């Protein structure tokens, strides 16, 4: 990556009591990129984000925003950051507009025009003067996004932003993030425990488990080619596939093999000559979920789904 990172986490650690909640996190985030921050519940996503915006003090390491250390120059560093930590909590007795005005005062140079512009961007014009207590969760998320964007941050952090959004809302949200990343070159960091959600919106995914960063994946990287093959009898199929030199893995009623497209016709021929009953051959895109399960050993994600 030749671009200069907007944000760098260097050896970020947090110990509460005797428990190491975040362990030596190193991560760089780049302009115009959406980076996913994936991990099961309790992995330490929110804690990391809280440390990135000054809500929690790291016990080790530091956060740099465009080279500015938060520990040394908090105000300058944070002036480039917009954030929603968990659910956006607004002053319920005030209107959405009053909330935005209130938060705008804490940043330099946010004009009335800018407030109106952001309101239009998130599509809240019609209800903005109503009290927040009358808003649905989806509207609160929009308002949350609006307050995070007021000061045109170069770096946007969203902690589980799709909580409480319906599928259409999630889709719209995804398009919107993509737009501000591409058009304004904003670097976006989105945490989630739901793979399916962030694999669609992210360019990169950092996986965290038990406070440790265990993998960073580039989503644009070409994926290995896999095929799903279903044939009977199973043992004969497996013997043949292994003999042909493929790595074989049981999946549903058949097997997953890492084969290139060109190898498939020859393989089919061999299978028919051996009189195997062939039911299905189809390209298989290993989802991030499979990879994630592999990486985390499976056990942790179950917890995430039940929560």
């Amino acid at each position, binding site marked *: 990556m030749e671009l200069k990172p907007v944000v760098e986490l260097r050896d970020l650690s947090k110990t509460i009591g005797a428990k190491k909640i975040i362990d030596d996190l190193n991560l760089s985030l780049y302009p115009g990129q959406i980076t996913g921050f994936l991990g099961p519940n309790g992995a330490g996503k929110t804690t990391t984000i809280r440390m990135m915006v000054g809500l929690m003090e790291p016990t080790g390491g530091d956060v740099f925003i465009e080279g500015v250390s938060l520990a040394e120059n*908090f105000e300058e560093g944070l002036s480039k950051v917009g954030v929603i930590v968990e659910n956006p909590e607004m002053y319920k007795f005030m209107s959405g507009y009053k909330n935005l005005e209130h938060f705008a005062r804490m940043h330099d140079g946010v004009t009335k025009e800018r407030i109106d512009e952001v309101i239009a961007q998130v599509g809240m014009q019609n209800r903005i003067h109503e009290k927040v207590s009358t808003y649905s969760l989806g509207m609160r998320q929009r308002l949350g996004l609006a307050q995070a964007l007021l000061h045109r941050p170069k770096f946007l952090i969203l902690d589980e932003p799709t909580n409480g959004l319906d599928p259409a809302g999630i889709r719209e949200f995804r398009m919107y993030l993509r737009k501000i990343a591409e058009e304004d070159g904003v670097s976006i960091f989105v945490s989630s425990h739901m793979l399916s959600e962030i694999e669609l919106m992210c360019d990169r995914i950092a996986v965290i488990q038990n406070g440790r960063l265990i993998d960073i994946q580039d989503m644009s990287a070409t994926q290995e080619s896999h095929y799903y093959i279903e044939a009977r009898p199973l043992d004969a199929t497996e013997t043949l596939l292994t003999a042909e030199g493929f790595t074989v893995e049981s999946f549903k009623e058949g097997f997953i093999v890492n084969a290139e497209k060109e190898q498939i016709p020859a393989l089919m021929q061999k299978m028919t000559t051996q009189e195997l009953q062939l039911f299905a051959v189809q390209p298989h895109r290993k989802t991030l979920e499979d990879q994630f399960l592999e990486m985390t050993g499976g056990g942790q994600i179950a917890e995430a789904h039940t929560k």
Partner: protein
Amino acid sequence: MAIMLAVIVLGFLGMTRLSTEMMDNTGWTEDLKNELAGVEAELASPDLTEEEREQLEMEKQGLEESIVYSIEAGEPEVRESVITEGYGITALVTLLTIIAASGIVATEFSQGTIKMLLSRPVKRWKVLASKYAAVLLFCLLLTTLTFVMTVIGAFLFFPGSTESTFMFYHIELTTTSFWGMALYLMFLAFINSAVVATLAFAIGTIFRSTSLAIGISLFLYFTGLLVVMFLEKYGIGKYVLFANTNLTNYVTDSPLLSGMTMPFSIVMLVVYVAIFLGFSFWSFTKRDVAA
């Protein structure tokens, strides 16, 4: 809240006026009234010298005032005395300010808005300083409102005094100094409210709970003097916060405990406020926000 306070102050003064009037029904005042009628009749006669007229006018005025400020009512309630004693009503200001000060930081935590507030490019001590300034302003506003309403009430419900009333009742008030005195007492009462509010503010900030802060502050506020009396047995009563909060004692009354002076109390209040604010700022700037 401000309107409520205004209504209560006016209502209180109105009631005071009504109750003094009810005590006015005595035969004694009837006599005065008859005497007054006689003097008025004399005044009406056309052939009086300038000197005689003046004499009668004075007599008439004296009688009128005696009727208005009936001796049986004890201390006469005149406009000026009502205004200078207005600071007594500021206990209400203290209560309202305790409630506001308790919640101003704590509700940010309980509603979760604290994280929206502190994840901004503003240092935490600045956020807390503006919260504290808001508490003091609120307190000042309510004190001023109380004063204004007291003045309005005093003019609405109570008669003004004249030189002769002062002389007759030995009221140590002169029209030139009483506004100054009234404002001074109000200022001392404001300090009282502000110091107690600082305690509530500190508890709310440290424990991050509104109800706890209101509860503890009100409890201390109401039991403070008992604690002072109790600790006085050991000679340390004067070091208790609530032995020092009521600075008006030194002006209108005698000190709460013998040997206490206004400068001593001021020093104690400064020390207490510094401690409260020290803990508040330490807690607010150093502790993690997990709400």
